[in-house]
């Protein structure tokens, strides 16, 4: 029974850790599928995390915080779009600039506004997204296996986790079954064809990066007002890049990306539980090995040693309309 509880709590942490990662990876999905490099996920998430925590600390409302996070991250997206779509600048350089600006600006503003050395004040329960117990969680608990699974792993998360869960099939549907999805995928593969069909390439790409900002804002708000209780300097700590790795591992498709996020989150949850514990038969597993695993996997995959990940064809290349 102890073993079951241990596994359930492991899966519960996995879901908690996977949600922000998946929201950011999905943000990358919309951006990259439209042909705009999404290396700016890290900075947009960080900006969102700060805006959410700062707004929630002042207003006491988690929802207003979420709104501010979405606005801040979308503003960052517009900047990325302005540089890389309108001015056809180098998208990687633009993304690096955005990440750097977000890293510096959030620390400067947090320190100036709250004077806590780069953090925001600890948020009260009302200013955070609390846990929601799904209906019948306690009633079903006595059922063998499924009862505890439902009560412990599926129920008891904050609303953003469920939003992320809904967004997975929804995004798959948008990408593969809707007109917008078809155009989105086309503009990332062959923008000239989209242009020939009379659809504006820049407009479509701006829509995509704005959706990307919207989702990054939610991911950032998750970190500071759902998972944590306030903003800390550089609190994303590479999660944006990890999300990008998940997107690559998922081969730029929503549902496999979700699976990759769950895998990374599982490794993360396992890693915290394995610290200093000797695994029977193996000995103590170095935590750094598990930490490096997602990155090593991504490198191997991109190099074609494990499967093959082919990015959208037009990703990173600005579209120049021929005269």
């Amino acid at each position, binding site marked *: 029974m102890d073993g079951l509880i241990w596994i359930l709590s492991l899966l519960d942490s996995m879901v908690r850790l996977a949600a922000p990662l998946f929201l950011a990876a999905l943000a990358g999905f919309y951006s990259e599928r439209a042909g705009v490099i999404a290396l700016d996920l890290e900075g947009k998430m960080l900006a969102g995390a700060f805006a959410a925590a700062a707004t929630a600390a002042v207003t006491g409302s988690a929802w207003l915080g979420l709104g501010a996070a979405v606005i801040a991250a979308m503003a960052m997206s517009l900047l990325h779009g302005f540089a890389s779509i309108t001015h056809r*600048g180098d998208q990687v350089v633009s993304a690096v600039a955005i*990440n*750097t600006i977000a890293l510096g600006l959030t620390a400067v503003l947090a320190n100036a506004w709250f004077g806590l050395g780069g953090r925001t004040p600890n948020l009260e329960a009302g200013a955070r997204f609390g846990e929601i117990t799904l209906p019948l969680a306690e009633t079903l608990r006595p059922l063998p296996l499924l009862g505890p699974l439902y009560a412990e792993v599926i129920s008891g998360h904050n609303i953003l986790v469920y939003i992320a869960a809904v967004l997975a099939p929804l995004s798959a549907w948008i990408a593969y079954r809707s007109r917008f999805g078809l155009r989105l995928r086309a503009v990332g593969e062959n923008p000239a064809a989209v242009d020939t069909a009379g659809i504006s390439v820049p407009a479509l790409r701006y829509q995509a990066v704005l959706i990307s900002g919207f989702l990054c804002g939610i991911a950032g708000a998750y970190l500071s007002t759902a998972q944590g209780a306030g903003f800390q300097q550089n609190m994303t700590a590479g999660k944006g890049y990890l999300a990008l790795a998940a997107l690559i591992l998922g081969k730029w498709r929503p549902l496999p990306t979700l699976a990759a996020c769950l895998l990374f989150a599982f490794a993360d949850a396992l890693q915290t539980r394995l610290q200093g514990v000797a695994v029977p038969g193996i000995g103590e597993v170095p935590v750094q090995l598990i930490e490096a695993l997602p990155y090593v996997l991504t490198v191997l995959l991109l190099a074609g040693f494990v499967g093959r990940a082919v990015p959208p064809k037009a990703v990173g290349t600005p579209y120049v309309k021929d005269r």
Partner: protein
Amino acid sequence: MSTATRTDGLPWWATALVLPVFNIALALLISALVILAIGEDPVGALTSMLAGAFGSGTGLGYTLYYATSLIFTGLSVAVAYHAGLFNIGSEGQAYVGGLGVGLVCLALGGWPWWLVLPLTILAGGAFGAAWAAVPGYLQAYRGSHIVITTIMFNFIAAALMAYLMVNVLKAPGQMSPESRGFDDSVTLPMIHDMLGAIGIETANAPLNLSLPLALAACALVWLFIWHTRWGFALRTVGANEHAARYAGMNARRITVVAMALSGALAGLMAINELQGVQHRLLLNFPAGLGFTGIAVALMGRAHPAGIIPAAILFGGLLQGGAELAFDYQSISPELVVVIQGVVILFAGALEHMFRPALARLFTRSAKPVGA
């Protein structure tokens, strides 16, 4: 990634001087707005920053010490840039290069520093080169995107180094993950001590013999990129890979070599940090200077003659930002990171926004209307 291949009629000095000065002025203007927004006096704050960086002997010493590391990481980004590669991995390459420098310094305790220095150059360079050559190889032969791979290698380097520091290199009986101190004999002399020995008094600062080493690296990179066949091949691959192939150059091998060279330069930064100042191997010693190298290279237009002033500028910002935080409690030193980001944005991503405007200005003044 396009540098000198433009034909919009801009004279070289406009590209090399006017655009960078304009970029930095814009970046300072934006940081002034940020300072205004948090309710402080921008003129006072920027003056205090300048004074902190250049106003005293100690300040200047620190500025040049930061600049030394930034010259190495800036050159690292620049060399890859000339081959058409965006190396975001200088941070990780410097970190792994530090392992080479640290191991040599730990192993050769008791040796004189001038015998150890060539070996740390070799080891730091080789470790950094190896860490960069792998992404280079994967780009050239397996088609993986160099940007993604170098980012992933930064994280892998951090994990690897954390593992080695905690489990292998940590000095016994110590809480923090640091190696034992290097032997006094292997550490590089400080400029302050060297000038003191010949009777010139200078302020005490961590500026050490790595600065002349960095300047020598600039000269060598300049010679290599613009005055050797290898450098020519490297620039050709960067400008047009198909043309390079057509001309019989081995573009793949050149990509790997360019990355290795880039990584070696990043690795040399560890000589300044470890053999020069810290005198032990410690966690996360590059502290973002590898990333700042991106801004230095973009600002310096990937040319050593531009990288030196850009490195001094950013070194000054780092030192001045630290001083600023003393004078103004509400302004944190991360303001420098904002300036860095804005410079990357204007000098790098929005290059196309200002350049045509400047070019128009020039053609208009060169050919008056109606002439």
